[in-house]
């Protein structure tokens, strides 16, 4: 764990370094403005109550975290720091977990801050308040964000290991994120009509808590093998060096 902490320290230190800090801070503020103010303002009470809104809590952190982790290995390779890092005593797993954790910590904490911000926005724009999500919904959404971030981070590291450049990794991950978003929509259309009807009814009328719990479970199930695969694929002797 101490080695994971060291890699985490390095990644966060790099993010918060003087010139990186402005870029990071601006990105965070734009993100929070979009996710915590614009979207809740556009969706109104559905942002809090609609079961389908949980998809947004998965997709947004997933997409953001993949852009961060695209740099994780390919970026080190481009900056010529990877080989020196690999020549240290750090175990392979600690490097992977430290990079995944750094991305997850960053994206998860910023995303969950959007929940109180969005709640305030909804209460300011929708009459008949106060509109406050129950604690169970908050906890379930936090779990959704956590697993979606971890899934995205594991996928990001996995792609970044073999990518020739950060740009190539970002392109691959952007396609993956879009496929992950459009895939279920295509899949739903292929299902028998009766099932589709039930599913749409559940998504439109069901409990947001139940939807969040189910989604968190699905994401957790997908995360475990992907993270395992990233750990297996990150082997010093197999990583291309320049």
């Amino acid at each position, binding site marked *: 764990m101490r080695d994971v902490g060291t890699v985490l320290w*390095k990644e966060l*230190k790099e993010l918060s370094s003087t010139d*990186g800090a402005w870029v990071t801070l601006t990105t965070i503020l734009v993100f929070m403005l979009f996710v915590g103010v614009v979207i809740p303002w556009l969706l109104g009470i559905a942002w809090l109550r609609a079961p389908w809104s949980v998809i947004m809590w998965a997709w947004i952190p997933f997409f953001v975290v993949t852009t961060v982790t695209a740099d994780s290995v390919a970026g080190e390779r481009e900056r*010529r720091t990877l080989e*020196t890092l690999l*020549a*240290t*005593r750090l175990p392979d797993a600690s490097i992977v977990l430290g990079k995944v954790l750094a991305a997850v910590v960053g994206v998860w904490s910023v995303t969950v801050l959007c929940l109180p911000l969005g709640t305030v926005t909804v209460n300011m724009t929708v009459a008949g308040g106060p509109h406050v999500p129950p604690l169970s919904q908050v906890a379930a959404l936090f779990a959704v964000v956590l697993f979606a971030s971890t899934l995205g981070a594991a996928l990001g590291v996995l792609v970044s290991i073999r990518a020739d450049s950060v740009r190539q990794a970002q392109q691959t991950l952007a396609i993956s994120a879009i496929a992950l978003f459009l895939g279920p929509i295509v899949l739903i259309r292929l299902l028998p009509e009766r099932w589709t009807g039930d599913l749409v009814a559940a998504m439109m009328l069901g409990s947001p808590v139940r939807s969040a719990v189910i989604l968190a479970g699905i994401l957790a199930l997908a995360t475990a093998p992907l993270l395992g695969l990233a750990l297996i694929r990150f082997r*010093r002797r197999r990583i291309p*060096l320049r």
Partner: protein
Amino acid sequence: MKRGTVQRLVAVPGGRDGPSQKPGTVTPPAIVARGLTRDFPGVRALDDLTLEVPRGAIFGFLGRNGAGKTTTIRLLLGLIEPTKGEALVLGHDPVRVSAAVRKRCGVLLEHAGLVDRLTATDNLDLYGRIWRMRRDMRARRTEELLRRVGLWDRRDDRVRNWSRGMKQKLAIARALMHRPSLIFLDEPTAGLDPVSAAELREDLLRLASRERVTVFLTTHNLAEAERLCDLVGVVREGRLLSVGSPAEIGARHTRPRLRIKGGGLTENVVELLRARQEVDAVEIGNGHLLVSLAQGARVPPLVSFLVRLGVQVEEVTRVGNTLEDGVLSLFHDEGGTPVPPLRAAGGSDA
């Protein structure tokens, strides 16, 4: 400037790697390679490398670009696996227990590998953390090393805008941060201007001497190798051609030369000298002759011959052949010089 003879360095009693050894016992070599070979698709990068590097020595691995120098470092650090052969680095097999090897080694690879966005202090602190040094130890060591390489006043600068020379100095400090027993330096002065390169060499010598660390240095700068190294190995197209001290390499792979001063060194004498089997070439200098001898030629019969011709021999001196002479001779020998059994231990081929 060198730290002493190889023989003295090989048999260092005690020291960091052998505190439990009895005085007088011979320390095992820092690096042992036996038949180390590495193939990449379509090319053999390293071919049957057999080598021993004694502890405490500065070992120079000389070769052109693409000769297999970086591949050797990667193999010894366990960053890639050999196609065949084996190695021991500080007594550990880099294939089976590569973590144990890396734990005791410091590196400055082809690129400085510094985190550009971080300050000099943070860069050293990061590697102190990686090597699990305590906070107070990290702070002390960071100050000590930055002062030694003259970067203490720039400790809070981010290294992004630093010159290559400053980055290389910091990278050497980083390599020594955890007091390793062995450091690998891959062309540390490449791309530096002559002044920066000289400064870096001085820093390197001072630090290596003070830290009593074994240095495995790759370079294609022969003057640098001659100045820094106790031992050198010459590699061409993945094959190790020769190992020895710079003087030995110079002497072994070039024809011995004599400078003969005296009276009566006429054209006729020169012609008669050139006709002799033991003489390869004769150059006429200002009041002297420079005679290149054939391999195995003896000097006394040649001097007797000159005396018989009526030459008043005043002085006969062997002209030292430099490392550069030896290495260039090896590189230009396209047919391939027969490779003697290669052992660096003790500073001579076995």
